[in-house]
């Protein structure tokens, strides 16, 4: 049985009607895909991608929510195999108390592991540990005839790396085997440092790269002039038991659970406007002391600050918002990001919060990260003016050799996409081999003409 529903991207700017199936077990998922021959499908976990990656207009979607079984765990190696619908939150709830953490985590724990593999998500530790794909031992992918194919970096590596970051287009990811990392405590020891501008932020992040497992900078995108790109650096390491105060050290692996609040209604659009942004940013960046070291935070507060307000995407009102994340190669990062920030100011397109991270080497095909600096921006959706502005930013990104993150994208053009992802023709070849009749497609794949 299926439901015809209107689904959204997390940014609530993209939406479309699709036919949604929700199989209770793997065998049913296989028969759905096999027997609904006239439909194309895309998998949908928790729907946390911002744009149209998990939408499929008038076609089929397979909700993986009920495909959430843990399949096996080896306590000697930390290898966990689970169905693709398991959320990061479930993994953390079960395994943090046993001394294991996710090798890589994005900014929300309410995403499915299958979706995370399909987007090859990255976290604050890319410069050291790569993206999620680099910690995956194996994936099982359901193909158009209902057969399950197992792949890994050694077994069918081409298919593996085309699936990691492949946006669900090489088949429905149904199971994932990943290596968890051992931890002594559920806490992170954090250092805060203010950088007066972009150049200082980039410099500090480069210098400190070796010393920190996790590193991120929250950027004030409203400030201009000599303060362009002023940021708050937040960097940390897993805390050892001896680094906790006695109260916490008694049960080091039990982090306090935060109560979450729901934002059940949309806030009116004027809540976030350039004036209120300037005030917020001034307060946030102006009054804190320049450096603050060795603050101990539980992992939930450090990695998932936004998850406290569930449905935080409603803060942007019913028109939704656009998320834009790009990466610029290391040799051009400073110049490229400066140009982008200045362009945004010129167009008066204000971003609420910018997040800056350092990337190490990437994985190729459609995987987003490459060695350099990445910046994420949020824009309340205000109309065509914003879309035009982002096209200009695309051109800047391309000119500096970078690209845009598909998991967040809702409006990139096919032409720009091809310039950003030179590996695309090779990926397309693999896609044609494994899915010649396009059984797997999405609004994103049609918009970017990935399967034309």
């Amino acid at each position, binding site marked *: *049985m299926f*439901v015809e529903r209107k689904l959204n991207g997390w940014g609530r700017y993209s939406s479309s009607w699709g036919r949604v199936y929700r199989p*209770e077990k793997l*065998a049913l998922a296989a028969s759905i895909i096999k027997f609904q021959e006239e439909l194309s499908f895309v998998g949908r976990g928790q729907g946390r991608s911002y744009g149209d990656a998990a939408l499929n207009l008038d076609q089929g979607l397979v909700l993986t929510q009920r495909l959430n079984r843990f399949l*096996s765990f080896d306590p000697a190696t930390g290898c966990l195999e689970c169905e693709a619908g398991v959320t990061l939150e479930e993994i953390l709830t079960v395994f943090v108390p046993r001394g294991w953490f996710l090798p890589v985590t994005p900014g929300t724990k309410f995403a499915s592991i299958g979706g995370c593999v399909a987007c090859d998500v990255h976290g604050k530790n890319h410069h050291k540990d790569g993206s999620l794909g680099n910690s995956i031992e194996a994936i099982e992918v359901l193909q158009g005839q209902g057969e399950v194919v197992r792949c890994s970096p050694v077994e069918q590596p081409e298919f593996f790396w085309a699936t990691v970051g492949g946006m669900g287009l090489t088949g429905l990811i149904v199971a994932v085997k990943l290596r968890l990392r051992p931890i002594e405590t559920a806490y992170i020891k954090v250092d805060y440092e203010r950088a007066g501008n972009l150049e200082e932020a980039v410099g500090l992040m480069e210098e400190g790269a070796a010393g920190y497992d996790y590193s991120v900078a929250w950027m004030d995108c409203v400030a201009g002039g000599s303060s362009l790109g002023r940021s708050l650096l937040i960097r940390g390491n897993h805390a050892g038991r001896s680094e906790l105060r006695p109260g916490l050290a008694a049960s080091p692996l039990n982090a306090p659970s935060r109560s979450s609040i729901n934002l059940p209604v949309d806030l009116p659009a004027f809540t976030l406007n350039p004036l209120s942004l300037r005030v917020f940013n001034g307060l946030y960046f102006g009054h804190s002391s320049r450096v603050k070291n060795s603050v101990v935070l539980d992992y939930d507060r450090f990695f998932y600050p936004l998850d406290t307000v569930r449905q935080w995407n409603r803060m942007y009102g019913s028109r939704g918002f656009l998320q834009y994340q790009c990466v610029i190669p290391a040799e051009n990062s400073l110049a490229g990001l400066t140009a982008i920030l200045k362009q945004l100011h010129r167009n008066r397109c204000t971003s609420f919060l910018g997040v800056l991270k350092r990337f190490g080497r990437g994985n190729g095909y459609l995987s987003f990260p490459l060695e350099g600096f990445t910046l994420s921006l949020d824009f309340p959706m205000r109309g065509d003016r914003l879309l035009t502005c982002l096209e200009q930013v695309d051109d800047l990104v391309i000119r500096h050799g970078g690209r845009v993150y598909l998991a967040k994208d809702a409006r990139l053009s096919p032409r720009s996409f091809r310039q950003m992802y030179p590996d695309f023709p090779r990926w397309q070849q693999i896609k044609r081999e494994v899915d010649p009749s396009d059984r797997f497609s999405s609004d994103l794949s049609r918009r970017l003409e990935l399967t034309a």
Partner: protein
Amino acid sequence: MSRILILGATSPIARTLAWEFAGCGDELYLAGRDREEIQRLAADITIRFGTACQTHYLNALDFQSHPAFIESVLAQLEPLDGVVFAIGHTGDQPGESMDPALALRIVEINYTSAVSLLAPLANYFEEQGRGFLMGISSVAGDRGRRSNYAYGASKGALSLYLEGLRHRLDRHGVIVLTLKVGFVDTSMTYGKKGLFLVASPEKVARLAYAIRGKPGVHYFPRFWRFIMLMIRFIPERLFNRMDL
């Protein structure tokens, strides 16, 4: 720490109920017809909760196999603290009640297998003098309706059988519960129009776990008790003309 046997463990309600028990540290025995699926469920429970979870193949319709099955369970899991009967054919295809072969199958799976399995277990519990027997029934068993009367009848019979067991076992300290469930958000109801009060399986499981010590008939969600009361009141002459 209790030892619980779940018959028909692969249904969504049974699965979430198993999580409730395991989450509180109980040891489980899962029985079902889909061998691969109950093994997957057992692996999931063992990893997720760190509790012991055994599995056994059980074909509800193979009545001859039931005595050996019960013997095997009791050998592994004695003393048994509770049994959940969650075996059920969903009965959601139109015209199923009208097809004699299909109707017979529904009745055998939903009711006859219950008698076959619960009769020996009731004897065991009576001798033990404690424990619970929980049967997952349905509001559909409260009145015969044209759309699903074979299914409704089988669930109605199940409820009546549990009522008899309750009457017998109450004085022996054994708790017998009938869970009359309305619409639950599973593949049986997914995509169906015109449903209301659809409960999530998690909610049903949580409530079922909470009331496991209270004998009697329990409706989920509770509102159904009043709805079925009203529906039962409608005289047949009027009801037969309705499209409920």
